[in-house]
């Protein structure tokens, strides 16, 4: 009986320790690293929100946090690219269509150049190229927004990408 009780208590304690990790919440040590890192970026809340919701950040060093942020950049750019393609299938005014076509090129550069360069540079240990690539992604998004002379259907997406790219560049800068 006592043995069963002991087993139960031990099991409960172990579950309390490990259940949060298995559900994707981040351990205290990792949380401190995330907060310390994010304080050195221009958008603390964006940074923390993205890193804390990625389970890989629980076992991260700054390089890995940078890679997580680049992955977030990739996900956003992919989402926006898909949205652009969807919009282009519709019936659009000439200048909006032109703007979206430019944006398709610009977001293609983010996905085909900036993201792979950033990942490669971080993995291989020449982070300055990752910083340049992260900054460039923000510039491409800004150029996309400037592609529309009037209404832009991508204002929020472009702003979001610029935010994440600024955060990613700032994290990479910590490695330099």
């Amino acid at each position, binding site marked *: 009986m006592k043995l069963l009780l002991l087993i139960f208590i031990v099991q409960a304690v172990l579950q309390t320790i490990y259940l949060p990790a298995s559900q994707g919440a981040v351990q205290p040590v990792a949380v401190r690293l995330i907060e310390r890192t994010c304080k050195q970026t221009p958008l603390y809340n964006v940074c923390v929100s993205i890193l804390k*919701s990625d389970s890989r950040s629980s076992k991260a060093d700054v390089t890995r946090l940078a890679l997580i942020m680049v992955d977030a950049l990739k996900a956003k750019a992919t989402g926006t690219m898909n949205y652009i393609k969807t919009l282009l299938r519709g019936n659009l005014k000439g200048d909006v269509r032109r703007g979206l076509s430019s944006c398709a090129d610009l977001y293609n550069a983010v996905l085909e150049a900036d993201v792979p360069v950033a990942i490669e540079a971080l993995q291989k240990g020449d982070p300055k190229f990752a910083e340049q690539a992260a900054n460039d992604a923000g510039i491409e998004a800004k150029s996309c927004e400037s592609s529309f002379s009037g209404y832009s259907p991508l204002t*929020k997406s472009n702003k979001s990408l610029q935010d994440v790219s600024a955060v990613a560049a700032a994290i990479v800068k910590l490695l330099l």
Partner: protein
Amino acid sequence: MGTKPSHTGISTTASDLEHAAYSPLPGHSSPASPRRPLKGFAGIISSCIFLLALVALILDQSQEPSHKPGKDEAPALTPKATSFSNISGPVARGVAQGVSAKSSPSFSGNELSYNWTNAMFSWQRTAFHFQPQRNWMNDPDGPLYHEGWYHLFYQYNPDSAVWGNITWGHAVSVDLIHWLYLPIAMFPDSWFDWNGVWTGSATILPGGQIVILYTGDTDNYVQVQNLAYPANLSDPLLLDWVKYPGNPVLVPPTGILPKDFRDPTTGWLGPDGKWRITVGSKVNGTGISLVYTTTNFTDYELLDNVLHAVPGTGMWECVDFYPVSINGTKGLDTSAGGPGVKHVLKASLDNTKLDYYALGTYFAENDTWVPDDPEQDVGIGLRYDYGRYYASKTFFDPVKERRILWGWINETDTANDDLAKGWSSLQTIPRTVLYDNNTGTNILQWPVEEVESLRLNSTDFDGVVVEPGSVVELDIGTATQLDILAEFEIESLGLEETNEVNGLCGSGATDRSSFGPFGLLVIADETLSELTPIYFRLANSSDGSLETYFCTDERRSSMASGVFKQVYGSTVPVLDGETLSMRILVDHSIVESFAQGGRRVISSRIYPTEAIYGAARLFLFNNATGVNVKATLKIWQMNSAFIHPFPLDQIH
């Protein structure tokens, strides 16, 4: 090539974030409009206003477009009455202080992003600067001279116009100007350089053997140093290279992280007959230069002391270490030393993307180096180049006894532009390096004399007077490939002095003061909608002495958004009795500017949309308020260097 070894690396698979912070869909809510009691009346009023507006619009559209100057304008020197600072054009809201090369491009916010044409992109390719036919290049590697040929290797991506998949590209020239492309010298085909054949240097041993030390990024992402040597030393083209089977010859030592160990230098001999090399690194934010001794380039001993260290400078990349003669007329072999010799230590700072150097004394007995002026130490003092410039490296030319400096000039446009035009990056024209024994505080850089073989016809201008606030066109024909020598004299107008200057170069050439800015406008179009000023500005410093600033202002270099538009520059020493002088090499999208015989240099990248091909012009300008400027110039048209592939099929 073998199959790629498996490695434990960081997962590259994208993970779709389920809790994205921002929704990709645009918000689109329109506020409810208040109900109007006199709806009908308001409807009539607004219809009238709409009709009137429509009429006004139609009338406006039918007016002629603004007059553009015709081609047969007034001859060569017509001082235009136009005030320089009133010339319209988009003024980018850039960085006010403007000497950092790292700031992001400036957008005025109202500019539409630019639609580049193929003609614009083609124009950007240079005529006489080294660049591969296509794709990405970065650091120059292992420059050397062998059996009649100068060799240049370079970090090269054969697959794309952005960094990655790095190999050693290769080219040769008999004169450092007319380059011939050769096949890639080294691929990342061994475990010890699987993830990159990175930067390295060549050492020529007595007897002529060549050894190259280069950084390899291993299959486990560790930075190591590897040895390579020519497969056939009697091949003047050095086409094939052998990687030492026992590689790597150096791995990160204790206390050095596996990603902070790269770019080994050329070796030099010590008094004990052993070779030394140095490798840059960092410890806790202090940039350091590790020293190794070797007798055979395969076995090394790490010295306890570093060659030098400077706190707060971060990772030292592309370290370079070489002697200069203080009676400087010739360059020195890397092993030279003794009295009458100073040593230059240089590092590329990873965290600022800037190349710094310092003059100092090398103590061969204990392999340490001490700067002449600790306040001008490596990383905090002088830079080789105050523009877009990085990863430089020197070598000794034994033929003409010169120390020659290469530097990588990155693009300052976007990755999208580079992908579209299919290439990225240039090397500078190689420069000779000499100690400046007039100032004793800096080196002098000057384009190698062989560049002068590209000079075609020249035009002289003697004593052209440019009044305050005016611009003078110099009629020299096409203005995209030029070698310009200019001297300036100023003549005070006795007016009250205004000397407000923001920072070193102000916020550019429209920042007027008594004694400047004045200089040249390169790659400018007729209407000055695009222009790049290169100028001097004199100002009284706080202690009453006169300081001279030398600057380049890219803010109006192009109407395109998305390209960097920096103001670059520095103070330049001007000694008593010296005239203000500058030399400028204009070559399409690169401008290299040298002040006072090469005391300060600025390399600039520009991407005009209007001032291209036949539309590009050259002007003198004087935006000072209190002085006339008298300019004397000699300007050459420059031929292309016709850089092309080596005709290898003709020698087999």
